[in-house]
């Protein structure tokens, strides 16, 4: 008999570990619209199973809470039950020995407040109004509602042109989104329950890569109506595309020399090659959309004059003015906003950072675009200065990793204090105050100063990437409601007191993603059509292939590869490599076809027109 033994997990422990992992995946792909009371009960049972059972409140109390929730779900509860639940939960929170008990009770207690209405609905009506909302998780999470299972099935059959046609029914930027969509669709992909979500964006990119030129569908018969769209970014162009297809004549007013808005002048070429952006824009223009370049609203043309000249006016100016830090020295030479910086690069302004030290303030995607662009301009050292931690950054994980891989320094927990300027008014560097993590408030970890002395970060160029606003003065003067840097359009995209004027995209919502801008464009396009007295619908005659019955064995997710760091940092060519056709077919076969299997075949499986 040895005095000590090495612990080796037995088979049951191994399987249990896997169960925990499966549980995570399950929860990841949990749909919204589920009954919060039933979910709370299920969660409580899990918590109770974790209890060691030593102490009364956790061993007995959690069980009693479970019975009470069950009674309420069974229609046997009353308002007294709720009162007793609250008393019991508070007791456990305040008397349980360890977190297994008090945190479980905390969850129930929070639910008693947050789901009060649902609890009462169960007690009074014998059921809740919750409904399974996400028949097809990817489609319902896609702001534009793109028929994802449909185009994946088409990609699987190698029908790339049809895939592009089907995507365009809801999104006229298939190529662009294939490169840079934030792909919220993948978050709750049901395939997570099997292994991992389907690489939806990658499949879209592949369809765009292999489809070649796909012409737009013919426009409806001309209505004779004319619509002015102010701003040729993703929402303006999407609305232009659909309104033109509906038979109206659209004229886009663009202040810059080329179309695309932030897609061209915000997103660097290495993420979205401009020639690929042009693929989408050329198809939109092929519908007959007219463009007036170099026209600035408020200067060259006014909302009032457009209202007089056109049957409807749509404002999609985006959010292209920058937010200020509000610290001293911000006006110094060498301090530049990310919007301006990226636009200059987009306009091919000659910039050379060779040998320079560059600091970028902010932790969002724009900040990542700025640092990676700075590296490509030859900077010696590029740093991100951020007041919180990396996990708190709002940028996509891939973007942060990409930046770090390309040699960016990440200086976290440093809050900008003041900008040091030399006697000639030129930037010397930035003073930052060291921070430490503090309380979690509303799921966001706050920071507070450590009390240590401020640190100086020397730099030749300081890029500020802390958010964008809109240029709203002209609109406010024209009577369009503007509040905290946004145009205050109603949910339908219009204004109750200004008939015929609509707004959508970043200028109405604040900076968001390209797919959200497209979604807004669909809303305003439909409502402008209706405002003009029509009821055109947008559909696509591509027939979605039937599901196949392949055995859904576990199969890894195909990730896209990237060009080697050492090469890519010297040019602005695309970083990401598309999938090969073989990879794409395999990846497409992983789609579980929620449009056919599950709730989708009953309700909400496919919207074939809008």
């Amino acid at each position: 008999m040895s005095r000590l033994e090495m612990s080796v997990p037995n088979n049951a422990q191994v399987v249990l570990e896997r169960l925990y992992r499966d549980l995570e995946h399950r929860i990841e792909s949990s749909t919204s619209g589920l009954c919060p009371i039933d979910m709370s009960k299920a969660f409580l049972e899990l918590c109770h199973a974790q209890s060691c059972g030593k102490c009364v409140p956790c061993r007995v109390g959690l069980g009693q809470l479970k019975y009470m929730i069950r009674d309420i779900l069974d229609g046997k509860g009353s308002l007294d039950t709720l009162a007793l639940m609250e008393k019991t939960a508070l007791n456990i929170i305040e008397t349980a020995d360890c977190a297994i008990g008090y945190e479980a009770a905390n969850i129930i207690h929070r639910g008693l407040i947050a789901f009060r209405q649902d609890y009462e609905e169960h007690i009074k009506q014998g059921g809740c109004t919750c409904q399974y909302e996400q028949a097809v998780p990817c489609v319902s999470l896609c702001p534009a509602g793109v028929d994802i299972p449909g185009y994946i099935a088409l990609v699987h059959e190698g029908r790339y042109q049809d895939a592009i046609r089907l995507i365009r029914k809801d999104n006229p930027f298939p190529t662009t989104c294939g490169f840079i969509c934030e792909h919220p669709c993948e978050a709750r992909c049901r395939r997570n329950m099997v292994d991992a979500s389907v690489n939806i964006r990658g499949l879209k990119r592949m369809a765009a890569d292999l489809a070649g030129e796909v012409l737009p569908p013919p426009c409806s018969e001309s209505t004779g109506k004319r619509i002015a769209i102010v701003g040729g970014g993703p929402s303006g162009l999407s609305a232009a595309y659909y309104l033109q297809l509906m038979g109206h004549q659209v004229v886009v007013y663009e202040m810059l020399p080329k179309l695309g808005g932030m897609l061209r002048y915000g997103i660097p070429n290495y993420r979205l090659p401009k020639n690929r952006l042009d693929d989408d824009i050329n198809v939109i223009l092929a519908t007959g959309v007219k463009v007036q370049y170099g026209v600035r609203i408020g200067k060259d043309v006014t909302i009032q004059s457009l209202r007089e000249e056109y049957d409807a006016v749509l404002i999609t100016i985006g959010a292209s003015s920058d937010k200020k830090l509000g610290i001293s020295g911000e006006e110094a030479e060498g301090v530049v906003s990310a919007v301006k910086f990226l636009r200059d690069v987009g306009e091919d302004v000659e910039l050379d950072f060779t040998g320079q030290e560059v600091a970028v303030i902010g932790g969002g995607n724009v900040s990542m675009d700025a640092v990676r662009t700075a590296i490509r301009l030859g900077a010696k050292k590029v740093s991100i200065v951020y007041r919180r931690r990396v996990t708190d950054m709002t940028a996509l994980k891939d973007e942060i990793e990409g930046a770090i891989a390309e040699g960016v320094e990440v200086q976290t927990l440093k809050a900008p204090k003041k900008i040091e300027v030399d006697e000639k008014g030129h930037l010397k560097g930035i003073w930052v105050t060291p921070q430490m993590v503090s309380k979690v408030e509303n799921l966001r970890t706050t920071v507070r100063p450590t009390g240590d002395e401020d640190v100086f970060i020397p730099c030749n160029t300081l890029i500020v990437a802390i958010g964008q606003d809109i240029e709203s003065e002209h609109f406010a003067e024209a009577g369009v409601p503007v509040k905290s840097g946004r145009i205050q359009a109603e949910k339908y995209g219009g204004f109750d007191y200004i008939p015929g004027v609509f707004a959508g995209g970043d200028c109405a919502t604040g900076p968001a993603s390209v797919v959200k801008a497209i979604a807004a464009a669909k809303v305003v396009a439909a409502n402008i059509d209706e405002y003009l007295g029509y009821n055109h619908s947008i559909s696509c005659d591509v027939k979605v292939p039937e599901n196949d019955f392949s055995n859904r064995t576990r199969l890894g997710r195909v990730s896209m590869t990237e060009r080697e760091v050492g090469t890519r940092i010297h040019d602005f060519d695309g970083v990401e490599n598309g999938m090969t056709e073989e990879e794409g077919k395999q990846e497409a076969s992983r789609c579980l076809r929620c449009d056919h299997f599950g709730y989708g075949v009953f309700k909400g499986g496919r919207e074939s027109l809008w």
Partner: protein
Amino acid sequence: MVNLEIDNIKVSVPEESTIIEAAESAGILIPSLCYLKEINEIGACRVCVVEIEGKDKLVTSCNNKVANGMVIYTNSPKVRKHRKTIVEMILSQHDSNCVTCVRCGNCSLQKLANELNIINVPYEQEFERRPWNKKFPLIRDSSKCIKCMRCIQVCDKVQSVKVWDVVGTGSRVSVGISGNCKIEQADCALCGQCVTHCPVGALRERDDTEKVWNAIDAKDKVVVVQVAPAVRAAWGEELGLSREEATMGKIVDALRRIGFNYVFDTVFSADLTIMEEGTEFVGRFKNNKTKKMPMFTSCCPGWIRFCKAKFPHLVPQLSTAKSPQQMFGAVMKTYFANKIGVKPENICTVSIMPCIAKKGESNMELYFEEYAGHDVDLVLTTRELNRMIKTAHIDPNTLKDAECDELMKDGSGAGVIFGATGGVMEAALRSVYFLITKKNPEPDAFRIVRSSRETKGWLSAEIDIGVITVKAAVVNGLGNARKLIEALEKGEVHYDFVEVMACPGGCVGGGGQPIHDGEELAALRGKTLYCLDSNAPIRFSHENQDVGRLYKEYFEAPLSKKSHLLLHTNHNNWDM
């Protein structure tokens, strides 16, 4: 064509065929519960699963299509084993107290469990018990519901009323009322299509047979019954009688043997309705009151409820004429009561209808000088009539053709076709023609308005009557009615006269008719009615001698003061 193999039989079927259809074409019947062709193909019950060679998971045959080279087994050991377990699971949540169930002997689950030789259920049984208003004409027993979702789909896709919806999530999913309200508040049209498409006994009509037996038993009551046209086309189906054997005369015999004192045919009051409604239409048409919106027929209470709930602004466009059922009740309690010398309060009026909405319609409270209460006291569906025949232990084969009672015996072929879609319109046009031209048209001159369950949307016709042209439309099914109204309101179409029947195919496909899971018999039953019409001695409502006498002796003329009082109604005067 797609070539495949099912149960070792080579099958060649059109592309787009589902597996269940392909199997059926080869004579292989795959059992199913939730499947309802084109209405409910959601693979919820999993009973129709089959095995595809080379695939691990079983596949539902109702909503998966065939492909070339498929090798399918519909009855392999794997399929049989799983199918049986599925049905055992369903039974664990289905209150199988079959002996007290109206669907006993006509239940798809009962039949399936028997076929699969399930003699015990290995699972703990737990039934959902939700409260229900037992006074409502439509009854739902949650403990019998198997969540096949057919009711939701029929109400939604065919009728566009959306009374039912999925409620709850996970283990607590059930069928409930949309918006979590009570059935009384749900604007239910009471068409009963959910009932006739329920595979089990979860949905049924309120059973009023006991009240009828009590009325028959009461010494001081004279019980007078009327039988709607569509009943004769369907009642025999549940009693083993062929279409030729199951005559109206035999219903009369059965009702007398059950103990009704007087037996009448609603065809009589259908003729009366034509006199009132036809005259009303001619009036409205001549006064240009149909220039914008048409006059709608008012015989179908499902349609009236739908109109009141969803299009209340169109209620003034409804004919003010009561339905034949209500007119007959009014006549029974006035003219007929006088004739036989019985006080109206001692008369109990009963009607046998193919319909559940008629139970709701009869509920209207009335207060006249002549009588108070209801035109019709008790309404039975065709199914309840059959249950009474069975309760009375009448052998259907012993029934003989008998005649209705005197005074209101006459009935025209025009009145008979009231039971089929387009029938009211055709009957009305025959008499409107006479009213305008003072001569009869060819009896079948207006056969163009004969519609069917399969008619997509609605049927329109322009009818030339002398110097005028009447634009008529016929629509059956409330989903189609909604489409028609939307087209009218958008100005895309215009009609003078529109017939609406809530049930697909008209009353012959009514929610109170015998149930045959998976079969739609409206067209076949409609044929019976048109056949009776073409053989009828009288083809025109205005030639009904008894109706003529009724006017002469009591109502004077259509739209007289008295008929306005007793034979017409204000549809706004009652709440749903």
